[in-house]
């Protein structure tokens, strides 16, 4: 039976990760990671802004169908389609301690 002198590739990768992120918790499958999974891809929006924008668009005759993403400025009410996808800010990054 051969003595296991070779470190498994997984452990090598683990050492690499710990070297890059020393404060990484030792329990990766813990509730932080799971709660991040449960909230994956959530896009936040302001329903007030959205409904105001919808109402405004209904009243205004839109002469051109603007397909380019308009720069979100102060007097343009953003709609969910305009907003870039946000990373959820309430959940800590998986790499944070």
């Amino acid at each position: 039976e051969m003595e296991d002198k070779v470190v498994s590739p997984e452990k090598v990768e683990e050492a690499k990760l710990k070297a890059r992120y020393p404060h990484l918790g030792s329990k990766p499958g813990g509730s932080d990671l799971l709660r991040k999974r449960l909230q994956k891809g959530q896009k936040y929006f302001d329903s007030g802004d959205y409904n105001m924008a919808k109402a405004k668009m209904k009243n205004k005759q839109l002469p051109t169908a603007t397909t380019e993403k308009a720069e979100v400025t102060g007097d343009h009410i953003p709609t969910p389609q305009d907003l870039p996808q946000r990373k959820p800010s309430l959940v800590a990054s998986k790499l944070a301690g």
Partner: protein
Amino acid sequence: ADIISTVEFNHSGELLATGDKGGRVVIFQQEPENKSQLQCRGEYNVYSTFQSHEPEFDYLKSLEIEEKINKIRWLPQKNAAQFLLSTNDKTIKLWKISERDKRPEGYNLKEEDGRYRDPSTVTTLRVPVFRPMDLMVEASPRRVFANAHTYHINSISVNSDYETYLSADDLRVNLWHLEITDRSFNIVDIKPANMEELTEVITAAEFHPNQCNTFVYSSSKGTIRLCDMRESALCDKHSKLFEEPEDPSNRSFFSEIISSISDVKFSHNGRYMMTRDYLSVKIWDLNMESRPVETYQVHEYLRSKLCSLYENDCIFDKFECCWNGSDSVVMTGSYNNFFRMFDRGQKKDVTLEASRESSKPRAVLKPRKVCAGGKRKKDEISVDSLDFNKKILHTAWHPQENIIAVATTNNLYIFQDKLN
């Protein structure tokens, strides 16, 4: 919005449905066989396209609910129409797809374009008749099953009783009756009283193909629980627990993450089930809970890349798997638009690529090989050259023929085996 998110053949294999990130369903239909053509099996052409789900907003939580179709499951055909269930994160819909190939003509009170005629101009009576028209395929929503899931729906599965189906999210599994939309029974609930104690989530669930009381659900910790609905109304206690023992000395930071099961599928004969975790496909005998009977490595060379795969989130990719009609071959996807097939009987496996560059129509696919390290042979691809953005997460196998559907990010490939 064109990103394909699910692929599913219907029970006869004549229809193939795809769902995408934009909430659309596209159904392809196989053309009838043309004996004079070289390839004896018909091609698949677009049959119907419809918008299944729209983006919605949860005003209470200020969240957008994605319209992406997570899963499509066909109902067995009972009459001329076809039915399928499609689901996004929160709502399941039953769609009826029906054909119309004739229309009534010769009304007395209406013109052909629908305008009403002046009754005083009607001097004779005629009987309207049905005349043939160009085939029109219509999709209409027949049921909407909403508001039963707090978390994101990952699976739906039609029961073999053809009356009920289950839907599963991260923490709960619900049982529905296809006719009833205002009520759903919760049959599994793994939500802990204190969310801080959450250790695992449900990743997939499926009904047994012929035992209508049996279903399984898989978890992020690599376990599969088989439940019998006859035992109790709430199946929190499993009948069987399938888990492969782990060597504690091999445990690493990544162990639990790569053991998370991304898909579970019963074999057609109902004796086995297959699970897909990050690096492998496992076949389980339903009579043996202690370990799988077969394990196939999908891309073992990625084990030495786990650090970067964790950093770019690829380690969380959810690959699906599927059986062929006779349960002799299993298939799953990988990166670089590669997909893998494992022949259980002949103990052979092959890696193929779904890409426009590597395959012309009617050409035979060339097997691919990944070089894990050391000297790269000609035609081999080194691990570092793999494109991790080109992932094949969704594949489907025709229920009877050797025809497969493989979805890359934006394209659907349909392959069939070479006929003499």
